[in-house]
């Protein structure tokens, strides 16, 4: 059977998906063991034992000074910032993207601006960002928003602009005003794409969060990574990165699930 036509069941897909990840893990272990055999004090590719040792204190023991479980406090702080940043970006992508994609005059006026903002690397303007938003939580959330919202806006606007012209015409012949068109025709059809855009933005969002936490923070996953980076403590960095990957993968799955729930029509009727 040709490969295009093979359908893979849910469980099979899961099993097959795990294989390359396991292979990568094994590869890592071999490399790490090798380096370790040469130099037992190697810090760059620590063995699992070292990682577990390093993480135990962070995960299970209260920090004496602050009385917090650092790992969990880091996670919570980062997720809050990330969640807020993504929520604001999503909301603005929806509002601006819809208007931009649907209304040619708005697109003509602000399209160029959005493109411009999208291509300006926000980390080059960090000093200004921190001056504008202070050194607190606002600046971190703002960096995420400035970093991913323009991309999401452009993506949603592009998708809205590609809606079949017949549908827009049709809705108008059925008496829809611009507002109703937006609310009832464009918005629901843009939702799956919006969720897709959020999924694609998760990676960049983490990058910006970590950059923000690297500069000014006293808690957060990115803060911890940058803190111990000075000591090349990969035994802490790697578990933290793995944890970030797990969190992001779970968020990705949740978003897929949401999209299926909310827009069943877009995901094909299942047999």
């Amino acid at each position, binding site marked *: 059977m040709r490969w295009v036509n093979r359908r893979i069941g849910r469980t099979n897909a899961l099993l097959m998906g795990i294989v390359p990840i396991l292979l990568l893990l094994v590869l890592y272990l071999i490399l790490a063991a090798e380096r370790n055999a040469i130099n037992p004090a190697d810090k760059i590719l620590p063995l699992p034992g070292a990682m577990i040792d390093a993480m135990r204190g962070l995960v299970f023991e209260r920090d004496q000074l602050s009385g917090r479980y650092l790992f969990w406090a880091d996670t919570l702080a980062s997720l809050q910032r990330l969640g807020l940043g993504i929520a604001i970006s999503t909301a603005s992508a929806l509002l601006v993207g819809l208007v931009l994609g649907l209304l040619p005059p708005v697109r003509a006026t602000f399209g160029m601006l959005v493109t411009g903002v999208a291509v300006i690397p926000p980390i080059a303007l960090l000093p200004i960002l921190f001056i504008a938003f202070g050194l607190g939580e606002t600046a971190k959330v703002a960096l995420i928003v400035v970093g991913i919202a323009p991309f999401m806006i452009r993506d949603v606007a592009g998708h809205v602009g590609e809606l079949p012209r017949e549908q827009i*015409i*049709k809705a108008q*012949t059925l008496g829809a005003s611009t507002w109703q068109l937006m609310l009832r025709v464009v918005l629901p059809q843009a939702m799956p794409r919006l969720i897709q855009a959020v999924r694609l933005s998760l990676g960049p969002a983490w990058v910006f969060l970590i950059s923000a936490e690297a500069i000014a923070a006293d808690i957060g996953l990115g803060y911890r990574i940058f803190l111990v980076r000075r000591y090349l403590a990969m035994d802490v960095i790697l578990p933290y990165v793995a944890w970030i990957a797990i969190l992001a993968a779970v968020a990705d799955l949740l978003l897929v699930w949401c999209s299926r729930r909310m827009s069943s029509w877009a995901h094909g009727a299942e047999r």
Partner: protein
Amino acid sequence: MSAFLSLRDVWVEYGDKVVLERINLDIAEGAFVSVIGPSGAGKSSLLRLVLGQDAPTRGSITLDGVPLKPECDSNRGVVFQRYSVFPHLTVLDNTVFGLECERSRFIGRLFGASRRAAIAEAEEMLQAVGLGDSLHLYPAQMSGGMQQRLAIAQALIKRPRILLLDEPFGALDPGIRNDMHKLITRLWSDYSLTVMMVTHDIGEAFALGNRVLTLDKWRHDPHAPQRYGATVVYDLPLTRKGAPAADTAPAPHEEADREESLSITIDIIDNN
């Protein structure tokens, strides 16, 4: 009746390809105009002009004496050649949509009693097009003919002043097509709609319309086939059903012999 809709020297060109040329037409209010012609002649393009989706390259179109804005509104309903229903709405919601837009300006949604009334109206219409059993399907779950019927129901429920139909019954089997003919004739006479219908079924064109337009190229340059566009080559008023009067819709059995007698006329026209 004075000219309700009139086209004056209208041309449609795509690049150097002339599609329609020198179209001059006056359509009276309440007319049922059938448009026939070979594939690619420009029938759909003509409908798009009247709909306001496209503007003519040259010439003017007036409605009630006022130049037509290149914009659609609820005065003009349409059933496109390719069934175009909203993929994210169920059959029922697709049909109710037009009513909701009209009755709920701000949120475009009805609730409570007014929603129930709208649903009842929609269900009646869906029953009439034979979709009474499929209220909660999404378009992707329906057959081609079912989608086309949904598009018809969607347009008819708004009772627009001008109804533009582009091969509306093309994908339907004879039985259902018959029902549709009756439905459209009834609505046309009850609400004195003005209808413009493109069809390939000549029997249908003559049975339903009270005026039949034939679009075709009037001359053809074999070396530059795109040089000349189509225009109205025949314009036949059918006096028998002149006024959108009572229930004079023909029984579908009358169609056959009509077709016989006309197929000769049509064959004269040089197909592109």
